[in-house]
């Protein structure tokens, strides 16, 4: 697509400002362009999506009017098609009808969709054996009948024709049988110790899969298990480790909180339990009787989010300065003595602290996943000081069977790969070649493993560099289990047999541990049969009930008692605060592509992102003041550079600018999940890959500003962004 001949919708920010101050009072506007009402913008509106007209391949002669004429003509002509005989149709009934199916009536099954390890319970509509529509499971604590965009759109991924369809060996079509015999050889060669065997998974909360891998590790004691989740909970986990000395899982109860302070946390839209959080939060926003009290939400955030839009009081703040603010707030509450200074006006902080103190035991401080562990630790300390623990937040053992820091785990793997210690690497899901931090140089490192196996829904960037690729079964095609945000176990039951030659992770691990041929159903069921106190008949009842309900009753993890470490204050009293003379870069999971796994889902691509309304693209998002300071406007390309002293080189990406009113100044937000090379026909070539400048030392936010030094190069290539 050429970008040079596109009209540039110049933004006149000064005009917009003048208009705002002149009009006074409340004025509602949808975009900066509308506010400024420049001539160019009006032309743009009149032409409505000139880019689309240009791209339809029929040449530049067709405009909107012509298209309307053509549409009218084709509608008239469509009437002619009624003058044909109806084609002969066939009715093909079952030979032996399955239980409960009434032709023409849908059935609903309970299952769960895990995302980054945490499950949302679903009720899936099935028409004649085909899953068609996904809604939330009212009995599941992580859903209560609600869903998010990812669960809604996941049914399209199931039917995605770009999904990988066959077992592939070195780029050629192979077979499951050949894979089985190859794995048999691997077992023979690596026995008895399993030296050089490595398994890389995403965050695993599935008790069955964890137990399978652990028994595999028992079989091969020298083998190692790594977990990496690009948009996972590393910071949160390390934050609890910092605060309590061991990783725990915080469970937030927004329905109990009168005052909520979000430290860059988008808890309504992302993170574990966000569907439930949104329900609980909104319930406290409805006046149902004379005794109803509304909650109050303070949000301090970098990039405007839906959570920020719900806030009663919102303060844009650089990601790197949120830590200082958290320290200041903690000091004001009186929980932790912190000497740090932040850019936040002291009276703002004092007001928030006063509000929190007034609602002791009924308030909540939550830190965002992208914030460093120290901010999480401060949030936990504040909750403890405010007496919120046990009221609005409680702690359980971790959801992950083996909680590890994903970045460090991947770093270990890369080090082993570099030193040539890896004989056999099994990558179960995930796409580290695409989404590993740039300084790991994961692709070249991966090639040093002697035998590489990848299993995933798509033959993606990682599959390309592996010897074997085994198509993964979609969650609607396979048996499994996973935990909700509070630990409740949900069985993942398939609604359809694998459309292609897909295998679940359970089946692949079973092959490695010598149980080849054991079905995913048997693996999951046998595990629970061994775990549950119910035996024989009672277990049958329990299993059937759990499948029907979508959750195993009373399996939520019990609250545990933890106390923040006393020396937390000293640790976090380090001088902090970014240097505002440099820009900082904040990385966020994309609201629609997530970490890139949904890049080939057209429903999600077409979905306008919250606040920015961008579709099919990501951008370098900056505030109005920063855009002015840099001299860039919407659609200008900027080059973001990251110096990598280790590799003695500078990495860079070119990104379109998008001005987001309400963004923190001197900060650039980049969404991950774009710039995919092997996503499929839908996702290929959309946006840019922000992972190119993501560093493992600060994978989610370059808070200090000094590490990432984006220099803007004003290329003025025109409107590089699609916008609705």
């Amino acid at each position: 697509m050429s970008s040079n001949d596109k009209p540039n919708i110049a933004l006149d920010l000064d005009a917009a400002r003048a208009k705002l101050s002149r009009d006074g009072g409340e004025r509602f506007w949808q975009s900066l362009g509308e506010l400024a009402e420049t001539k160019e913008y009006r032309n743009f509106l009149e032409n409505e999506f000139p880019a689309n007209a240009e791209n339809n391949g029929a040449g530049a002669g067709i405009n909107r009017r012509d298209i309307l004429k053509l549409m009218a003509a084709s509608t008239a002509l469509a009437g002619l098609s009624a003058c044909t005989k109806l084609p002969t149709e066939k009715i093909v009934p079952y030979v032996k009808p399955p239980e409960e199916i009434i032709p023409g009536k849908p059935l609903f099954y309970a299952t769960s969709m895990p995302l980054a390890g945490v499950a949302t319970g679903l009720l899936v509509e099935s028409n004649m054996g085909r899953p068609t529509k996904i809604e939330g499971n009212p009995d599941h604590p992580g859903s209560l009948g609600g869903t998010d965009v990812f669960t809604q759109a996941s049914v399209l991924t199931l039917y995605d024709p770009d999904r990988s369809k066959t077992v592939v060996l070195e780029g050629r079509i192979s077979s499951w049988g050949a894979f089985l015999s190859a794995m048999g050889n691997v077992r023979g060669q690596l026995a008895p110790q399993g030296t050089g065997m490595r398994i890389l998974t995403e965050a695993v909360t599935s008790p069955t899969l964890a137990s399978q891998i652990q028994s595999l590790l028992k079989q091969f004691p020298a083998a190692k298990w790594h977990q990496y989740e690009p948009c996972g909970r590393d910071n949160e986990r390390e934050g609890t480790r910092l605060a309590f000395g061991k990783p725990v899982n915080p469970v937030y109860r927004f329905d109990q909180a009168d005052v909520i302070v979000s430290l860059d946390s988008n808890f309504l839209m992302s993170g574990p339990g966000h569907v439930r959080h949104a329900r609980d939060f909104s319930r406290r926003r409805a006046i149902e009787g004379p005794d109803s009290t509304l909650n109050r939400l303070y949000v301090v955030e970098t990039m405007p989010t839906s959570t920020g839009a719900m806030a009663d009081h919102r303060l844009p703040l650089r990601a790197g300065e949120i830590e200082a603010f958290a320290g200041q707030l903690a000091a004001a509450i009186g929980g932790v003595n912190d000497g740090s200074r932040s850019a936040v006006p002291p009276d703002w902080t004092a007001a928030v602290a006063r509000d929190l103190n007034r609602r002791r035991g009924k308030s909540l401080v939550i830190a965002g996943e992208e914030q460093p562990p120290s901010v999480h630790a401060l949030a936990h300390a504040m909750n403890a000081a405010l007496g919120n623990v046990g009221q609005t937040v409680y702690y359980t053992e971790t959801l992950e069977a083996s909680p590890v820091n994903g970045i460090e785990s991947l770093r270990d793997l890369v080090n082993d790969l570099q030193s040539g210690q890896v004989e056999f690497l099994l990558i179960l899901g995930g796409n580290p070649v695409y989404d590993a931090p740039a300084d790991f140089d994961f692709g070249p490192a991966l090639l040093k493993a002697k035998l590489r196996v990848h299993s995933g829904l798509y033959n993606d960037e990682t599959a390309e560099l592996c010897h074997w690729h085994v198509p993964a079964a979609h969650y609607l095609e396979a048996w499994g289990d996973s935990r909700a945000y509070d630990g409740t176990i949900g069985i993942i039951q398939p609604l359809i047999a694998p459309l292609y030659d897909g295998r679940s992770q359970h089946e692949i691990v079973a092959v490695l541990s010598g149980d080849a041929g054991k079905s995913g159903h048997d693996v999951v069921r046998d595990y629970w049969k061994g775990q549950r106190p119910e035996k024989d008949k009672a277990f049958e009842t329990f299993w059937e009930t759990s499948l029907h309900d979508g959750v195993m009753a009373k399996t939520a993890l019990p609250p545990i008692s933890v106390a923040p470490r006393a020396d937390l204050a000293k640790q976090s009293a380090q001088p902090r605060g970014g240097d505002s003379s440099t820009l900082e870069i904040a990385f966020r999971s994309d609201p629609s592509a997530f970490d890139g796994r949904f890049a080939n889902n057209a429903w999600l691509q077409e979905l306008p992102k919250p606040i920015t309304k961008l579709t099919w693209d990501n951008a370098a998002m900056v505030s109005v003041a920063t855009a002015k300071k840099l001299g860039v406007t919407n659609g200008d390309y900027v080059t973001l550079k990251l110096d990598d002293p280790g590799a003695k080189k500078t990495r860079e990406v070119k990104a379109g600018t998008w001005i987001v009113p309400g963004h923190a100044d001197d900060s650039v937000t980049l969404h991950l999940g774009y710039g995919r090379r092997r996503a499929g026909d839908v996702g290929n070539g959309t946006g840019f890959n922000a992972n190119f400048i993501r560093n493992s030392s600060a994978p989610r936010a370059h808070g200090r500003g000094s590490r990432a030094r984006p220099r803007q190069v004003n290329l003025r290539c025109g409107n590089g962004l699609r916008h609705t």
Partner: protein
Amino acid sequence: MSQIFHHSTNLISRLSIYGGVFILGLLGFALYEIELSPWYTDQNVAREQPVPFSHKHHAGELGIDCRYCHTSVEKSSFAGVPPTQICMSCHSQIWTNAAMLEPVRASYRDDKSISWTRVNALPDFVYFDHSIHVSKGVGCTTCHGPIAEMPITWRAGTLYMSWCLECHRQPEKYVRPKSEVFNPNYEPPSNQLELGRKLVKQYKVQSLTNCTVCHR
């Protein structure tokens, strides 16, 4: 100045005006007839099937209830075409060697569905639900015709919108007591209109003629 047109032009123009009306009218009439002809509507055309199943024998002579095979007619939009298993529930006992039934046995043996030719098909832009019709006193034979007399099944109506509306506008002309809905030999009584009005009230039959009732 000489005349531009020859004298005969008068005649030609007259003839072509009358002829135009007549020819166009004839063409319209022909199209109308074609549209209503069995060739176009498939009305009264017995369709060839993989097994020459006779409703006359099963529903008429043996008196098997419609719902024995069309199981979902009371519950679903789709009446249901019987799975092979239902055929075999009898034909594993009787006529077990009939050559005519070999496709049925083969289907059961090989677990391969029988592919029946659809007789009554509505276009996909029409929503139709069997269950609501049978529960409001519309009999099977009201739409499907004298099914107990069909050795091979044919389409009894045109399935045109005008055909649907005929009943939707005046349900009292067709509604029958619920107990008679599945009776293939039901004859409307002489006082149909009187009975129909009573039943329409009793069954709360609505005369639904809004476009979006069927074109959703």
